């Protein structure tokens, strides 16, 4: 654990440094308040500090105020060391943003115990942030397939369409639906159906580039957003995705199951003014055509518009 110590008294600084190093801390020692504030405000700077009250440039309480102002988002644990021990001083120190204080000359055991209490608070914050990250992940991903969930993939598509419009580039949307998936569930049961959906998710992710998006759109429907992919490539990319699923049966506890996809493809043009809902409608009607054409195939939406697509894509 990194810790910063700031004291203009060389003797005191050395004593602190040695005591803390012995206790296993990684110590940064500075001799004035200005340097202390700078160290603490660095992005990877220490999150734990022992600050002498009386120092040149900035005194301990001023360092506390400065650090609290700069590093508002993450908690840093600040302990003032002072020979001042009047109630008034202690209140002033804590009000300036210090979390704790130690009266010097300090007792090494008390010093270490107080730092451990600071570490508990930092650990608590780490746990909370980790939990928040996990919640954020759960709120944006589908729990079965770990793909982006419906809300998130639609949001990302809307963002991509706006970007494509601004940059006059192209975005391709592929709406993929598993053929006869209901019969998988009916014949082999839902756990096998889930196995199939998970494997489809993995294969879809494997068949796109790292900057494309794959989401679970509905029960057995998936939405793939291919960034910077224009009409001329759209259908062949969709065929790659289709073959990635259809070519190899999916291994399940009930044996290998041949699964196929029908795909509706829509390629937006540079200045396409359509909103995300309309784009999804286009992809959906293309998907309907693919289903009507006998399934296990891809269909491109709005051929008339596509004919004028920029040939560079």
């Amino acid at each position, binding site marked *: 654990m990194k810790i910063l110590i700031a004291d203009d*008294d060389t003797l005191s600084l*050395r*004593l602190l440094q040695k005591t803390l190093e012995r206790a296993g801390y990684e110590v940064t020692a500075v001799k004035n308040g200005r340097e202390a504030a700078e160290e603490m405000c660095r992005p990877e700077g220490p999150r734990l500090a022992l600050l002498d009250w*009386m120092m040149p440039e900035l005194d301990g309480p001023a360092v506390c105020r400065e650090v609290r102002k700069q590093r508002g988002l993450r908690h840093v644990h600040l302990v003032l060391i002072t020979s001042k021990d009047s109630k008034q001083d202690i209140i002033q120190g804590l009000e300036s943003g210090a979390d704790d204080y130690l009266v010097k*000359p*300090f007792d090494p055991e008390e010093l270490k115990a107080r730092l451990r209490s600071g570490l508990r608070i930092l650990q608590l914050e780490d746990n909370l942030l980790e939990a928040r990250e996990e919640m954020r992940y759960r709120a944006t991903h589908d729990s079965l397939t770990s793909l982006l969930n419906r809300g998130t993939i639609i949001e990302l598509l809307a963002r991509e369409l706006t970007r494509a419009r601004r940059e006059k580039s192209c975005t391709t949307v592929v709406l993929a639906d598993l053929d006869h998936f209901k019969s998988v569930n009916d014949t082999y049961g839902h756990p096998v159906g889930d196995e199939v959906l998970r494997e489809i998710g993995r294969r879809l992710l494997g068949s796109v580039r790292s900057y494309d998006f794959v989401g679970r759109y509905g029960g057995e429907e998936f939405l793939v957003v291919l960034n910077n992919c224009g009409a001329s490539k759209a259908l062949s990319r969709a065929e790659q995705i289709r073959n990635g699923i259809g070519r190899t049966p999916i291994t399940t506890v009930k044996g290998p199951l041949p699964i196929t996809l029908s795909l509706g493809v829509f390629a937006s043009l540079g200045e396409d003014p359509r909103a995300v809902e309309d784009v999804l409608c286009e992809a959906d009607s293309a998907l309907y055509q693919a289903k009507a054409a006998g399934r296990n195939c891809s269909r491109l939406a709005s051929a008339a518009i596509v004919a004028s697509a920029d040939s560079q894509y």
Partner: protein
Amino acid sequence: MKSATLLEGFVDFPELLDRVEGDQELLAELLALFQEDLPASRAGLQEAVARGELHEIERTAHALKGMLANLSAKHTAALAAEIESAARAGASQRVPELISTFNPEIEAFSAALDSFMASAER
């Protein structure tokens, strides 16, 4: 540690040993740092007194008090603390008297430290 008797009357030795967690090497280092720093600190205090700068007297006395307290030189630290608080209270007339008590005490302490360090080296 037999030579510790040399510091008797100046230093609460058991407390000091606790503070350095029994590390004799660190102790020697701290004492050397103190001796190294002392002339400049005392000169700073002396100069502030000569100029009658109360804030500077307070600051330099505070620094001396801090070092002395870290070495558990309790009596000498208390004398420095008196200078500090007199200066803070604006009692400039009391300062020379306090200094005249402090000076021989700190000189004696520093001399005792020299003997202690010399005996520790042997």
